[in-house]
């Protein structure tokens, strides 16, 4: 298995600049594109998309323009399940599926073939009713893959993640690692990532996970 790592950047990395209005959405994309040719781009949907969970035609137009102009590769769509949106209860599975479906259809329109799903949505104790399973027909219809986020303090080698790896099912699932603030030339952290990937035997990059 190849362990070639291709770099991508998440818009989460530009929280400070974006929130303080120092960078607009487009200038954030421009900055990401300046890091390297064919830089991968993860967008955090509720950070970037005013009409979240829907992707408006206006956003689609602006996004596609930026991808073309700044030589970006849509690598991961930052999907959120927001299961606790309604006080006092979780969303029903029907509500959650619909909420996710809207985002996944938007991700497809933006040119993504992979969407990130929070580990909160990946129920390890009872996977029969897990959200991702309910989404499989939509994923197949849209030709999308889901990637499970490995969130701090977990790492690829964590016990939780190993359970995910062992139970990984069907081709819809890929595994990728997101570094919130990993920039180019951060060789020590890249080396650490490569070592973790190698030991875990999992697919390391957004781009590879799509293939």
């Amino acid at each position, binding site marked *: 298995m190849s362990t070639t790592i291709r770099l991508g950047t998440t818009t989460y990395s530009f929280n400070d600049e974006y929130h303080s*209005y120092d960078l607009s959405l487009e200038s954030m994309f421009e900055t990401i594109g300046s890091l390297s040719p064919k830089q991968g781009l993860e967008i955090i949907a*509720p950070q970037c998309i*005013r009409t*979240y969970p829907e992707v408006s035609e206006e956003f689609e137009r602006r996004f596609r323009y930026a991808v073309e102009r700044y030589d970006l590769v849509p690598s991961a769509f930052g999907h959120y399940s*927001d299961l*606790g949106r309604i*006080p006092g209860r979780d969303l029903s599975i029907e509500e959650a599926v619909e909420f996710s479906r809207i985002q996944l259809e938007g991700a497809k329109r933006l040119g993504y073939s992979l969407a990130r799903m929070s580990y909160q949505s990946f129920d390890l104790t009872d996977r029969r009713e897990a959200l991702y399973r309910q989404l499989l027909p939509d994923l197949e219809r849209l030709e999308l893959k889901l990637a499970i986020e490995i969130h701090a303090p977990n790492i690829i080698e964590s016990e939780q993640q190993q359970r995910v790896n062992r139970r990984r099912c069907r081709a819809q699932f890929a595994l990728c690692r997101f570094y919130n603030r990993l920039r180019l030339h951060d060789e020590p952290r890249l080396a650490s990532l490569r070592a973790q990937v190698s030991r875990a035997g999992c697919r390391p990059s957004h781009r590879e996970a799509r293939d």
Partner: protein
Amino acid sequence: MFDEDLIAGQRLTRSTRGENRFLSFKIRLPWYRSIYLSCFDRIELSVNGRPQAEENIFFKLYGTTYRFSELTKHHSVLWFVLDPAELLVQHDSNLPSDRCEIALTLFFRIPYHRHVFRQVSTCTSALQLEDRIALS
């Protein structure tokens, strides 16, 4: 996260609506992403050191004013992360003519946590008091 931006701007506006007097100021969502109004379930606000009752606090976003205590009902209204909102507090006390100290703590649920997990954001700011005469 972004606590220092919670109170946005430098102005505290004093206005009247019917028999009632209000103070209002701009606030920012102190988080990295947009969230639904239903996530906001507690607030602590003091003006010049005097705590204000939650039932006297209102939240205005995109032209609509809500009682803060009723925000939890609005799980389909998204507060986009870049958009300022406005807090209004009904008050009866006399205020000095120039500056007021506002202390605000906002509590909100993280929507993607399946069990209650809150963010707490606190900001204190001295705002310049100004009057707004005409109100709809």
